């Protein structure tokens, strides 16, 4: 089959196979269970706070999703191409009329689907945790209501509880977490086109992730405070050119703290993440095309 539909079919077939293979991997399933467990365990931590329990739940729940997602993205991506080379299955696939870029994109989309499924499952668990908490809190308020009819103040409290548990900011935060995972997966997949060691890919992705977070601090110290010399400024320029500014996603914490952030801003960061992932994969495709297998 030729043309665009042929390319699309080949990419989706590879993506489907990658997803099925990933779902069979016990490590990733264990990580998912760990994440779900951590989200549910956030209930335990609320006993350390007598106020603002929903914010505590949201912080821990979103962090559980992020940490699990990052581990799945890095470990999953690191195994994509090196494992195919090790098992020699890559030669069978590439001997067919499948372009290397199609192969890479299919692999990435398979991993991205896995991350999406994982995020949806964990978000559902997260929503359940918030709803259970809401039910418990509302029941506590109702118990205090004489003759079962809540007073004006108690109604205000119930509305406040519902507003906290059904906060649209949680959706914004989940979208941004999803986009951050898509970008990290893109970086790890690109690194897997040039490396053979899983450990190397995971480690390097982690280093890039931390440098991406540190960029803003380095900029502040070296450029804005003027303490950086020529070397520091050049280093920062190279880093800024190569590595995404992960500090952009720190707005997740602001959203979960109850600060209002517009959907336009969320979509702008989402757009940035999609463009960055596309560019980084294009670079990965160019590298993979030249790689000797």
């Amino acid at each position, binding site marked *: 089959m030729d043309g665009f539909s042929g390319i699309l079919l080949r990419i989706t077939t590879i993506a489907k196979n990658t997803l099925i293979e990933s779902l069979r991997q016990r490590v990733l399933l264990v990580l998912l269970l760990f994440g779900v467990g951590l989200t549910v365990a956030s209930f335990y931590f609320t006993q350390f*706070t007598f106020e603002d329990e929903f914010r505590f739940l949201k912080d821990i729940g979103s962090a559980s999703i992020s940490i699990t997602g990052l581990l799945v993205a890095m470990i999953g991506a690191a195994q994509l191409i090196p494992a195919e080379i090790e098992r020699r299955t890559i030669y069978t696939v590439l001997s067919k009329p499948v372009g290397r870029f199609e192969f890479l994109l299919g692999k990435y989309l398979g991993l991205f689907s896995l991350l999406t499924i994982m995020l949806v499952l964990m978000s559902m668990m997260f929503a359940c945790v918030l709803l259970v908490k809401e039910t418990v809190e509302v029941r506590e308020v109702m118990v205090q209501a004489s003759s079962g009819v809540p007073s004006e103040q108690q109604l205000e409290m119930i509305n406040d509880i519902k507003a906290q548990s059904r906060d649209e900011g949680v959706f914004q935060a989940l979208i941004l977490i999803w986009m951050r995972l898509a970008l990290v997966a893109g970086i790890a997949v690109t690194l897997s086109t040039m490396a053979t060691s899983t450990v190397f890919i995971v480690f390097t992705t982690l280093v890039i992730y*931390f440098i991406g977070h540190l960029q803003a601090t380095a900029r502040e110290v070296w450029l804005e405070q003027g303490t950086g010399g020529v070397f520091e400024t050049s280093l920062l320029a190279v880093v800024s*050119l190569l590595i995404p500014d992960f*500090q952009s996603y720190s707005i997740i914490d*602001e959203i979960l*703290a109850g600060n209002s952030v517009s959907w336009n801003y969320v979509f702008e960061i989402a757009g940035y993440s999609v463009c960055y992932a596309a560019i980084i994969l294009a670079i990965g495709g*160019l590298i993979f095309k030249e790689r000797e297998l």
Partner: protein
Amino acid sequence: MKPVGLVILVLLIWGGVKLPWERRIGDERSDIVYGSEIPMSFELRETLGQELSFAALGGFRALAANYLWIKVTQAWEDQVWTRVRARADMAVTLQPRTLFFWENGAWHMAWNASVSVVKYAEEDKSEERKQFESRKWIDAGIDMLERGIRANPEKYGLYLRMAELYWQRLEDYEMSAKYYRMALERPGAPTYTDRFIGYALEKAGKYEESLAHWESLAAAPNFEERMQSHQQKVGENIEKLKQIIANGGPLEVDDSQKPTNAPAS
């Protein structure tokens, strides 16, 4: 063109797009957080220790701040107030836009610590010394709320807490009224704020101002909606204040007028 050259070209073109885009996203973020976002400074990293720095650097500031808050709670249970203050300070540095840390950090200092240093002081400590230490903790609470207000000027919550602090801890009702007013100017302030301005002014001895406040409330077009079940109380207060002014002196202070929304000690 060779692939290496092509990769470099793609990177350069993307860099030209990416950098201004990131700067714009960063600027918008600064607007959202009112410029209160504090980058992960080297000084803070030294204070936080390795594990928490790792979490905070990895984009998990909220998680690190919550962990610190658990430590604050432990220090509170142990009544080690200097540790409560140090950890609460770290939590607010990590999450300056979360009111919870400011409010409760200030509450620990201005209420819990300041009472504790008097109530559980060593027997040989003089009353003067106890009061001095107590006042120091109240000032620490005020300082925390002032910093919190600077980081969150558009939210009513910390103004309200400051009003309660001046009322309950320092009995400075004039300052309390001032902060209730400031809270009321912010969106979402609870309906009782309006009434507490009147009560605070009365307790401060500013009867004419208090009367003017209650009368302005009664004359407001949305009086019924704002006062709800307290409409009768407004009329009673107006009458009472008119009497006080006519008598040229204060009447007995009604204890039931104290704010009831303050955190329990």
